[in-house]
């Protein structure tokens, strides 16, 4: 008699599932803590960075007027410029005339190129000029000869508040050091740091003469503007007339957008760091759950024996992992919220606004949800095996039928992980293409590491050294025997090593790039603003001092009026014209000579009209002026050889033909020019000259500068070494930020390492105890374990380093247009640290097995 059985379609007994999840978790606290810690660090990084970015964005919005310091900034090279619409409005205005000049420090007889800013009025109207002491901002305006000097200059030249500086003919007392002011960027302060003086004394300096390059700025604050008045709209309406009058303008909204754009790169970098930290956390989750579930299979088999369905067993562990993921995410969000309070301090040197520390609920909730989601997603793949745990394990002790094949659910999970990585990268980076490339790289990296693991196992198996001693054979065999951790450890430790090492390589690459330009035989002193009548005298002075004249170059400023008869206005109005506006707007600094210098190479065309019957030039007279532009610039701006370019050379139109294009190596410290004129055209145009030389020491440079500044106050000197020192300082700060952020990745990577190694110990306990029972000495077991971790650590770190080298080479070649030359010392250091850590953590974990009696270990550890 055969009864039909029908399993009642019962709802999931969630109460019991939760109860079992809790019962099981309470005895696995230490192991689950490792799982949870990966989530905590990953989410902490994410929440900290996203909160910081959120706050930064909202502060840029709310403090936008302080970024500009006024409602409107107008600027021109002409002191008499006018914008009647604004002048007619009720307003207050401040004036700032700025120009590059050398200042002299009587205290130590040194001089330095700075950006002198003569200020009149109460600017800034919003925010403040930050000074040390704070009172200096107000007291420097008390009508006396007082100056505010950039703090980096004060440090470099060892001058203090109260000391004097001489600008032109006037001696000023240093009232305070200048920390920051609206409209001051790092880039600008690099070459010529700012020095503020009162406008009243500008004429007395006698530095402003006819032809001096002065930038006239006006800062407006509108008093009771009409309700419907929109300054941005007004500027848009008047854009043509402003351009015609060569007046540039900036409003609060424009400044806000520009600042936002600038900090998008920073935000991208931070987001990438958060993404990498979280991804490492995910690797931690997957490897922790993978090993955890392996241990739980016997327990699941017992439950299955007692009548639990595969679904019940799966839900127990899913609930456990989900709840722990949620707890980890909440703890991570709390930690992240605390960490974000440190970030504004870390980034303070680069931030345009004071970043407030506020709870960003979007980031916190987003972080918690992400943490919960990734815990489950990355745990699913190992968890899914619970469904298929056979109850027969209770009788046989092993899963029969060997390795299970991937089923559809497993593929579905992998698909979801792939989509998640792309989706999350998209949210963080904001570009689908970049996200795809990034995901592809991560996938390739994993594939590469898995391949290394498989090949290593195969090689050990294939070429097993039978003649080696037992300890070596046993530890090597552990790499490929059942329950080995080779694949998991090489993937997780390898990826962590690869990410962190790549970060280090790229940082070193960027710093090396800068150092190459400071090479000993490169030019390091640039003298410019030399008037035509001073050229010979200054050249002679340099030669007398034994300094080589590496370059002596005339420079003429001009604007481009038309291309093939098309003016800027026509190009703007007619959308069918494929010309970019930038080339009409820029002020071109042009030189003239008949040959190329060593940083240039002819890409196409010819510098002079060829002799004889040239087909191309048959319609042109011999006197036609051929100019040469940079090859890339020509391509970017849709220009072509033989185009007719008309230039406005300070009021005089000059018609030229684009005769050639050149490739230019811009990285050399020397004068390079987008546009090159032939000789015989510009000699009579107003111009200044640049002299480039090389000094052997700082002292020699300082002495030469002092002499020039004394005799030729209009001339400016750039000490490249000094700029590079400042650049070094900035790079140091950037490097610190990168290292600090990389710390997240390092800590998560370490946690992955620790959890992987700790969890792997449970795979080896039984046999270690058996070996001890059979009389294996403490030393032998210690050696076997150390060697196994040595092999694993070495394989993982070397694979990671190899991956990092490939990645860095790719980045150097494709992104930084540079050559990656790996430095052996850091590679050895990374290898030793990672391998050493693997061994140390592994051994610390095995300590218990070695020091306690075997039976006690079996009872306590085997569950």
């Amino acid at each position: 008699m055969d009864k039909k059985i029908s399993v009642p379609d019962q709802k999931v007994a969630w109460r019991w599932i939760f109860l079992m999840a809790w019962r099981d978790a309470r005895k696995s606290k230490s192991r689950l803590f490792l799982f949870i810690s990966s989530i905590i660090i990953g989410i902490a990084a994410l929440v900290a960075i996203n909160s910081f970015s959120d706050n930064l964005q909202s502060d840029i919005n709310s403090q936008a007027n302080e970024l500009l310091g006024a409602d409107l900034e107008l600027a021109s090279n002409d002191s008499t410029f006018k914008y009647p619409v604004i002048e007619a409005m009720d307003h207050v205005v401040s004036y700032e005339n700025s120009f590059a000049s050398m200042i002299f420090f009587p205290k130590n007889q040194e001089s330095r190129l700075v950006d002198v800013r003569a200020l009149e009025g109460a600017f800034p109207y919003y925010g403040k000029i930050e000074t040390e002491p704070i009172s200096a901002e107000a007291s420097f305006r008390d009508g006396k000869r007082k100056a505010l000097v950039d703090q980096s200059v004060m440090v470099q030249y060892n001058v203090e508040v109260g000391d004097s500086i001489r600008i032109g003919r006037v001696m000023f007392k240093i009232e305070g050091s200048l920390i920051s002011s609206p409209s001051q960027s790092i880039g600008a302060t690099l070459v010529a740091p700012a020095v503020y003086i009162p406008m009243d004394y500008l004429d007395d300096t006698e530095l402003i003469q006819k032809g001096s390059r002065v930038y006239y700025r006006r800062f407006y604050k509108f008093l009771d503007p009409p309700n419907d008045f929109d300054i941005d709209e007004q500027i848009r309406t008047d854009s043509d007339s402003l351009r015609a009058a060569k007046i540039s303008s900036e409003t609060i909204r424009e400044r806000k957008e520009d600042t936002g754009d600038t900090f998008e790169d920073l935000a991208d970098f931070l987001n990438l760091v958060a993404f990498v930290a979280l991804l490492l956390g995910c690797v931690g989750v997957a490897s922790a759950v993978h090993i955890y579930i392996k241990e739980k299979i016997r327990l699941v088999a017992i439950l299955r024996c007692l009548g639990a369905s595969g679904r019940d067993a799966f839900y127990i562990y899913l609930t456990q992992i989900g709840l722990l993921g949620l707890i980890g995410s909440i703890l991570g969000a709390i930690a992240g919220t605390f960490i974000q309070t440190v970030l504004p301090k870390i980034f303070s040197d680069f931030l345009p606004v004071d970043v407030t520390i506020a709870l960003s609920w979007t980031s916190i909730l987003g972080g918690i949800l992400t943490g919960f989601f990734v815990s489950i997603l990355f745990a699913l793949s190992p968890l899914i095996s619970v469904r298929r745990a056979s109850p027969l394990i209770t009788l046989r002790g092993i899963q029969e039928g060997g390795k299970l094949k991937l089923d559809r659910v497993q593929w579905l999970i992998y698909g979801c992980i792939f989509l998640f990585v792309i989706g999350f990268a998209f949210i963080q980076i904001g570009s689908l293409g970049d996200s795809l490339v990034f995901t592809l790289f991560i996938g390739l990296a994993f594939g590469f590491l898995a391949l290394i693991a498989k090949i290593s196992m195969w090689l050990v198996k294939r070429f097993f050294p039978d003649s080696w001693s037992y300890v070596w054979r046993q530890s090597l065999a552990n790499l490929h025997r059942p329950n080995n951790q080779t694949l998991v450890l090489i993937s997780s430790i390898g990826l962590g090593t690869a990410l962190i090492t790549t970060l280090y390589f790229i940082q070193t690459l960027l710093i090396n790039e800068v150092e190459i330009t400071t090479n000993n035989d490169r030019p390091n002193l640039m003298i410019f603003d030399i008037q035509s009548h001073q050229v010979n005298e200054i050249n002679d002075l340099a030669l007398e001092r034994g300094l080589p004249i590496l370059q002596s170059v005339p420079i003429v400023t001009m604007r481009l009026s038309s291309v093939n008869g098309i003016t800027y206005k026509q190009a703007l109005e007619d959308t069918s014209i494929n010309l970019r506006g930038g080339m009409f707007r820029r002020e071109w600094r042009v030189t003239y000579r008949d040959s190329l210098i060593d940083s240039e190479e002819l890409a196409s065309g010819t510098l002079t009209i060829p002799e004889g019957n040239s087909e191309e030039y048959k319609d042109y007279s011999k006197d036609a002026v051929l100019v040469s532009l940079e090859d890339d610039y020509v391509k970017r701006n849709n220009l072509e050889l033989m185009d007719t370019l008309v230039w406005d050379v300070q009021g005089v139109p000059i018609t030229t033909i684009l005769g050639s294009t050149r490739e230019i190596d811009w990285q050399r410290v020397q004068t390079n020019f987008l546009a090159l004129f032939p000789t015989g055209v510009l000699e009579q145009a107003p111009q200044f000259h640049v002299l480039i030389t090389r000094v052997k020491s700082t002292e020699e440079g300082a002495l030469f500068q002092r002499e020039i500044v004394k005799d030729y106050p209009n001339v400016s000197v750039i000490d490249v070494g000094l700029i590079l020192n400042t650049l070094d300082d900035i790079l140091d700060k950037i490097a610190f930020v990168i290292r600090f952020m990389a710390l997240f990745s390092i800590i998560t990577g370490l946690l992955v390492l620790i959890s992987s190694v700790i969890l792997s110990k449970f795979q080896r306990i039984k046999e270690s105890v058996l070996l001890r029972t059979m009389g294996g000495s403490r030393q032998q077991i210690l050696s076997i374990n150390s060697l196994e971790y040595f092999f694993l650590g070495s394989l993982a770190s070397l694979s990671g380093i190899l991956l990092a080298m490939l990645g860095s080479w790719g980045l150097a070649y494709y992104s930084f247009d540079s050559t990656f030359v790996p430095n052996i010392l850091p590679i050895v250091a990374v290898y030793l640290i990672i391998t050493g850590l693997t061994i140390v953590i592994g051994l610390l974990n095995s300590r218990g097995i070695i020091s306690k009696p075997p039976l006690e270990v079996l009872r306590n550890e085997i569950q």
Partner: protein
Amino acid sequence: MSNILEVSNLTKTYSSGTKSLTVLSDISFSIQSGDKLSIVGSSGSGKTTLLGLCAGLDRATSGSVILNGISLDNLNEDERAYVRNQHVGFVFQNFQLLPTLTALENIMVPMELRREKGIKKRALELLDRVGLAERHDHYPTQLSGGEQQRISIARAFSNNPQILFADEPTGNLDEETSEKIEHLLFDLNRESGTTLVLVTHDLDLARKTDRIIRLKGGMVQQASDEMVAENG
């Protein structure tokens, strides 16, 4: 009396690549409700495999198993789990307690799976019956082998199974403890009227059952009632 377990022409073959190994061949027997049956044989004779198939822990290559009138042959794993939970109890050689659960919780699990009410009281009664009431909150690692097996027996009886499968229940215990466990197992079996299928290579233990099936090389060598007669 009706048959609680009917096994007909049962064969189990394991395949590995091109090779195959038959561990059970054409086994047939039946057992009536309330009977006690032993399966004996040397190591590798297929007795544990037979127990696994009878209890629905594994699928046969051919033949059929009908347990309490239900054919296990075409059930999927979850359906077989349901049958085990409703009708079957297990006692294993290596106890197979859930290590993360206390003694009391281990006993409660089968009843929890049946979604019964008032299970704590019954679990405590069973704990008391096996003499371990005061150890209710101890974890398996805190108990001796004999104590673990007593918990395992209490768990096996917690869902009032119609049939109890015991795989070498005293195989991991010393003589004195074994004797106590045997008594407990047979006493509880008698009290609850459960059918008992015992896998052992201990002939003394086997002789305490009503019937013995002797396996050799995966085949029934002797299904003996004589021994039952010897026994009593």
